[in-house]
């Protein structure tokens, strides 16, 4: 984007519909980034004006006031005061208010106007206001406020053309008014009441769907039941819908690897491309289906207003370990995969709450642990029944899930009392009116999230894959060496031996160490690595042959079985607790900016 373009900041409170206005004005020409050093999201886009000129639009974080306390508010305030927060400046401001709720929304708008930045006031959701019998005297408002006022509907596009014309017109300089007065709640709201009294006329209109829907969705019994059903559906879709897409992606990358394999002569380059680059890119791509599906539901819940109700219902339950109601969905998603779960913590506003949720999300039993559990349980846990009906194998699996949850809750409880202690944040949350979601903004959210993941975490994951490839491939052995023998002599094998003293107390030998090192790429990779370590031939499903092989493996020195049921349980507990998945670490790092 050219530096000379005029920059316009869009400012409004969280439920003013400012993001849909931003989407409407910029279309697909937008990108999401973080402000340096803070986990506040920055959306920037371009908007074409009737004259053919391009504007740069910046969607600032939603805020209720300009008195800066949170990082979000500080950024908004600094940009408006012309201090240029975190590299951001604005020549002009578009203040967005929800026309159905002028009395509360004008409080922030008056503060924005009082900063003296040249501004345009946009009354968004004007069709919803009219349907509710609210009519607003726009001309009178312009006279009272001294800035252009436009009534629009970002959702239907009504009034957007006139807004583009207004943005195209040369702007008058604003003048700084009594900002201190506007920032004082008592006086600020008195001014708002006065303006509302003079511009708003109410006639009986149909009331929204709120009362009826809330009676059901936040009902004492029905509310939690519907919530659980809905969450179950979300979770099931992440599992069920993502699998075909993930399989297709895996097949695609497999075909690509095959094509490269066929086109290039055997050698370091082919090995680098096939086992390093393509394998790494495949790991990254495998996350996209789950991410897209989860963010589809999150955007849907946010857009319809159900997210706030879900948080309302769950707040008490999650509050038992000091987490907010909004932590529930990210944690639930982490049972599929911690990556989308951690990215979903963006819906948690408070920083400490968000960090605590990110820290415990990897403890939820993700689907990548399942193949490892299935292998070890199948090989070492006897197929018996306890109490007649309960399968011992099923119970073991269930215990592993519960173990992860209990440890996570304990960690959250401790974190919130130690490192992340702090005044419990004031829990005020708006319950916005129910709205029909805009598919456009739902799709944009999915696209932005996936791109952000590819840029921020994807690059790290590919880089780590390359390092792991190098460790497993060098130093090279003589041609014709069996793969298992070659792996033993590689850096990965040496590393496995080096960490053996550390993992010995857990009952692991160096071969398992090699498997653990490889599981950094993705937990289930451990299985194929183990198959190589034990020099299984490549034929058949590695999991099935390993299940038969592992119980027969003997320790090189003692001659005793390497794996006992106890070692298997130790290994599974290690998998339950250890955050060795590089993708999780990469995402957690990016999401916390640490």
């Amino acid at each position: 984007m050219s530096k000379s373009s005029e920059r316009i900041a869009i400012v409004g409170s969280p439920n003013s519909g400012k993001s849909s206005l931003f989407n409407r004005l910029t279309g697909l020409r937008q990108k999401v980034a973080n402000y340096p050093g803070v986990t506040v999201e920055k959306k920037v886009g371009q908007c074409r004006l009737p004259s053919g000129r391009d504007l740069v639009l910046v969607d600032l974080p939603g805020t209720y006031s300009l008195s800066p306390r949170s990082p979000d508010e500080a950024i908004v305030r600094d940009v408006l005061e012309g201090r240029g927060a975190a590299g951001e400046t604005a020549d002009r401001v578009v203040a967005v208010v929800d026309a159905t709720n002028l009395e509360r929304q004008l409080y922030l708008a008056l503060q924005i106007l009082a900063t003296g930045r040249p501004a345009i006031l946009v009354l968004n959701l004007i069709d919803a206001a009219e349907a509710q019998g609210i009519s607003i005297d726009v001309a009178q408002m312009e006279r009272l406020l001294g800035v252009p006022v436009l009534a629009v509907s970002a959702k239907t596009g009504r009034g957007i053309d006139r807004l583009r014309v207004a943005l195209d017109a040369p702007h008058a300089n604003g003048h700084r008014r009594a900002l201190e007065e506007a920032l004082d709640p008592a006086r600020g709201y008195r001014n708002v009441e006065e303006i509302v009294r003079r511009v708003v006329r109410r006639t009986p209109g149909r009331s929204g769907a709120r009362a009826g829907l809330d009676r059901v969705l936040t009902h004492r019994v029905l509310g939690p039941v519907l919530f659980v059903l809905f969450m179950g559906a979300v979770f099931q879709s992440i599992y069920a819908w993502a699998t075909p897409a993930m399989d297709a992606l895996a097949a695609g990358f497999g075909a690509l690897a095959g094509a490269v394999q066929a086109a290039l002569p055997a050698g370091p380059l082919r090995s680098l491309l096939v086992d390093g680059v393509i394998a790494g890119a495949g790991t990254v791509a495998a996350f996209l289906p789950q991410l897209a599906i989860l963010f589809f539901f999150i955007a849907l819940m946010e857009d319809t207003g159900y997210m706030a109700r879900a948080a309302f219902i769950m707040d008490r339950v999650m509050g038992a370990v000091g987490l907010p109601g909004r932590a529930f969905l990210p944690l639930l998603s982490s049972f599929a995969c911690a990556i989308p779960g951690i990215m979903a913590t963006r819906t948690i506003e408070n920083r400490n709450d968000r960090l605590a949720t990110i820290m415990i999300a990897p403890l939820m039993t993700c689907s990548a642990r399942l193949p490892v559990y299935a292998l070890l349980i199948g090989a070492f846990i006897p197929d018996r029944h306890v109490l007649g009906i309960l399968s011992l194998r099923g119970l073991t699996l269930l215990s592993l899930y519960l173990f992860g949850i209990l440890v996570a809750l304990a960690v959250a409880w401790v974190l919130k009392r130690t490192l992340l202690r702090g005044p419990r944040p004031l829990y005020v949350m708006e319950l916005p009116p129910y709205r029909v979601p805009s598919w456009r903004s739902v799709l944009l959210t999915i696209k932005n999230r996936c791109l952000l993941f590819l840029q921020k975490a994807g690059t790290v994951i590919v880089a780590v894959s390359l390092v792991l490839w190098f460790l497993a491939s060098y130093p090279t052995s003589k041609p014709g060496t069996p793969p298992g023998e070659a792996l033993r002599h590689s850096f990965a094998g040496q590393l496995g031996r080096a960490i053996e003293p550390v993992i010995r107390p857990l009952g692991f030998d160096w071969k398992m160490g090699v498997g653990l090192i490889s599981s950094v790429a993705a937990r289930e990779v451990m299985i194929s690595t183990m198959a190589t370590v034990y020099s299984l031939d490549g034929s058949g499903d590695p999991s099935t042959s390993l299940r038969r092989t592992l119980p027969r493996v003997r320790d090189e020195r003692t001659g005793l079985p390497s794996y006992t049921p106890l070692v298997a349980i130790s290994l599974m507990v290690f998998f339950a607790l250890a955050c060795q998945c590089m993708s999780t670490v990469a995402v957690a790092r990016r999401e916390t900016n640490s």
Partner: protein
Amino acid sequence: MTAMTLALLAPGDRAVVRGIQAEEDFARRLMELGLTPGTEVALVRRAPFGDPLELVVRGSHFTLRRSEAERIHVEEL
């Protein structure tokens, strides 16, 4: 002043805010949401597990934890 607080209202009750007994930052935050002295509030419902509470202030619906609502003094209407 009576000890009536927002937390003691029953669903459907209306009241007027008289004052907020809390540190300045906390009180300011609530006032910025429109809970200035003299403002009418209504308690809509309690969450299914008893906490938080849903309020209407100046036409907007908010949720507030009971421990927070206890610090807002009101006069019932």
